[in-house]
């Protein structure tokens, strides 16, 4: 009885495994059926690229004709097996760094990348100095000599 059960369960296991073996190529075939993959990569790349006609739209979302043409080019490059970096280089070579929503880090863009942090540090330094200065100044202003107080009282009386 138990051996029979074991055989059944083994058979089931085998079936499950077979199903998996059957599934794996199926999934690969789906992957190999170019378009969805190419399309997914296209969207991933084009999301980071600016459409030059409607400059606040990404290349992925723009309906401008040039965007369509550029998507066609990018699709072609992906099919040729070019890497994401190579695809981006293709567009930067023609349209400049402006097409990249996330510009490369290089000396020309240092101010862009690090400027805000530099400004923050500068602001903190200025704030620190101001606070330290105020701490040393405040007590001196509030102390009033006895003579001053007498004078003030005199003035108030007049």
């Amino acid at each position, binding site marked *: 009885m138990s051996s029979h059960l074991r055989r059944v369960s083994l058979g089931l296991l085998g079936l499950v495994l077979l199903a998996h073996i059957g599934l794996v190529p199926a999934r690969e075939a789906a992957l190999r059926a170019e378009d969805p993959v190419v399309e997914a990569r296209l969207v991933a790349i084009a999301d980071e690229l600016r459409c030059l006609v409607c*400059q606040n739209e990404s290349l992925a979302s723009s309906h401008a*004709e*040039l965007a369509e*043409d*550029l998507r066609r080019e990018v699709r072609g490059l992906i099919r040729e097996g070019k890497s994401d970096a190579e695809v981006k280089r293709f567009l*930067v*070579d*023609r349209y400049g760094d402006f097409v990249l929503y996330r510009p490369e880090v290089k000396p020309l863009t240092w101010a862009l990348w690090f400027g805000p942090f530099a400004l923050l540090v500068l602001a903190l330094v200025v704030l620190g100095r101001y606070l330290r200065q105020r701490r040393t100044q405040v007590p001196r202003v509030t102390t009033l000599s006895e003579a*001053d107080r007498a004078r003030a009282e005199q003035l108030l009386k007049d």
Partner: protein
Amino acid sequence: MNWLKLQRRRERVDVSDMKKFLIPLALFLGLVAFLAVGLKRDPREIPSPLINKPAPAFSLPTLEGGEPFSPQSLQGKVWMLNVWATWCVACREEHPVLVAFARQNAVPIVGLSYKEIQPQDEANGKLAPEAKLQMARDRSKVWLARHGNPYALSVMDLDGRVGIDYGVYGVPETYVIDRQGVIRYKRVGVVTPALLSEKILPLIRELERS
């Protein structure tokens, strides 16, 4: 005497108050200047990475028919490439300027007819490539006959691929290419008489001397 001291201290305070006032004011004016410059700049004018790079090679059928044109055939000459199309409204504005400039015979102007056949032309079904080329040629010839032809020749970039290689993103665009086939200047938008006389012509003269 005590009162005098007090007065002096108040003066010192006033001066430092002024400074406190002037620093933000200077910062503010700096910001204003920065933004004013930003406002004046045309966001469509993007510095082209193609300046001082060799003009991309291509071989395209011409408007006139016959042998395809490739930029290599103009090696050793300074020339201008002007991107245009009959559907381009700004080109109509630019065209008389180019026609007048062509009469001076300063340099050959090659026209690049960019995507003459638009999607709406194919609304009733895709056209065969030959039919597309024929339609584009017919339409361009009529247009040039009406408005004047400043071009030594025009090439037909129907799918806009050559346009992409030249970084075209708005028609009209104009390039100046030197004897070695290097792009020296690019203008996105309409070429004006002032631009021609102040910038393009001096550049052409300079390139022809070298």
